[in-house]
């Protein structure tokens, strides 16, 4: 038996509805929310800041440290025990690799950039959703990056390649008679949109190699759509910030240290120069 119609009625190439927002956590240097269907990820970035313990420091460049965590009530079934698990540690590690491919911390020796990814609610694809949120948060924090990494899980069910699996599709044999575990595979992929390079690739399940190649092509196309949502979230935040910065400046509380001078003319600059010397 084949997988002919997706359980939630989507086309096989269709992603779940996506939503993204940058700058959601005030205390953080950068932050974001990313939603793919019923999977939601928050990401917060702190740093660059000094790395402790000191022996972990790299005098040549800063390091990126990612921490993936499911909130206790975010699983489809029973409560997830709080604290790190083998699974969350592995996902943290592959997330770190997926993102460090584009991050340039050569200007921050001995420092660390911490990325905290929290999942309040999951419905499969949580590592991809986490990476998508983290990439926006890194950009929001102003961390030098070559690009914004975009991730999506591609699945193989029956003879079909399925974009952005949800929980039921990841466990298809439970929901659809005639399919067995052997007919289903899950392939999370992270892509650097500008080059098409792949920075995260995992697979669970049995497939022909041709299927994998095809899946990777689908992943590229899907990642471009993810990337568009990521970029829009950043544009939305910084477009609003430019407006409020402008208002602040026009009120005179922007850059000038001298309360009497609200406009930065060349005279002012000269005065400041004189004062400083």
């Amino acid at each position, binding site marked *: 038996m084949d997988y002919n119609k997706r359980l939630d009625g989507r086309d096989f190439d269709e992603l779940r509805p996506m939503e993204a927002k940058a700058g*959601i*956590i*005030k*205390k*953080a240097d950068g932050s974001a929310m990313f939603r793919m269907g*019923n999977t939601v990820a*928050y*990401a*917060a970035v*702190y740093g660059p*800041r000094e790395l402790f313990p000191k022996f972990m420091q790299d005098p040549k460049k800063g390091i990126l440290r990612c*921490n993936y*965590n499911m*909130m*206790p*009530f*975010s*699983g*489809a*079934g*029973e*409560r997830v025990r*709080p*604290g*790190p698990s083998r699974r969350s540690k592995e996902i943290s590690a592959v997330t770190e690799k997926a993102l460090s491919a584009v991050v340039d911390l050569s200007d921050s020796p001995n420092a660390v950039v*911490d990325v*905290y990814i*929290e999942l*309040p*609610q*999951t*419905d499969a694809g949580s590592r991809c959703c986490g990476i998508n949120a983290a990439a926006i948060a890194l950009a929001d924090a102003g961390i030098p990056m070559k690009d914004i990494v975009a991730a999506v899980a591609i699945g193989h069910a029956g003879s079909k390649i399925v974009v952005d699996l949800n929980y039921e599709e990841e466990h298809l044999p439970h929901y659809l008679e005639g399919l067995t575990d052997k007919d289903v595979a899950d392939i999370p992929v992270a892509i650097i949109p500008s080059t098409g390079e792949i920075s995260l690739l995992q697979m669970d399940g049995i497939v022909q190699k041709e299927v994998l190649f095809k899946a990777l092509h689908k992943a590229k196309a899907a990642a471009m759509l993810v990337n568009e949502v990521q970029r829009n979230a950043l544009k939305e935040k910084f477009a609003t910030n430019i407006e409020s910065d402008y208002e602040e400046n026009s009120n005179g509380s922007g850059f000038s240290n001298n309360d009497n001078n609200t406009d930065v003319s060349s005279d002012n600059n000269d005065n400041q120069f004189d004062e400083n010397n």
Partner: protein
Amino acid sequence: MMIDQEARKHLRESLAKGVRYDGRKKDEFRPIEIRTGFISTAEGSAHVKCGETEVIAGVKMSVEKPYPDTQEEGILMVGAELLPMSNPKYESGPPDATAIEVARVIDRGIRESKSLDTQKLCIKAGEKVWSISVDLCPLNDDGNLIDVGSMAAVAAILNARFPSYENDKVDYKKKTEESIPITRTPIAITILKIGTAFIVDPTELEEQALDARLTVTTIDDDRLCSIQKGGAGTLSVEEIEKMVELAVHKSREIRKLIKP
């Protein structure tokens, strides 16, 4: 954000004149927004935003073996993890004393209010009872985590619905109409003593200038059900009287928001 001696002194002097940095009155909360039932994987959920402090609470239920000393009673547990996401001062790893205190004060406030009929959570004495876990996750910590966390916990418990339970199996996909048998609305209010001033709903900055704090949890008829004193400073009986009065007064306001 750590504050130094001078900043601390300035904050205390301002408070002595009745001035808070954000312009609030001493007994005034920041604006509170409560949203419930938005997490599909949880049996109950609440998101409480108080100023810039934001906390999510989620309820999960499962069927467990009861504790040996309470064979006919269900289990309620409130946990809090101070996520490193919410403030640069927290680090990954097992919860430290601060996190444990936050969780325990909230947990005791709800438990000691006797508002939950734990016997109603019994399915089969000595064998099967419902276990209710309330987990608190701060997204952004700008002070007053105990009060805000407690609001979120109670709001999530009120929002929760039991999952279906048939043939010894919980079906998390199917929610019933049945809510948690809670009869009262415990509200925790923390009063800070800074110099001679008493304030409610402290920001993170204000918390760092405290002499002492008193968390008072009250129930609907204004009776008290749990108290926790914190901070290195001492309190006189007269001061405690004042603080408790203020807490009772504020709890009525907050209760209306949690249970309209």
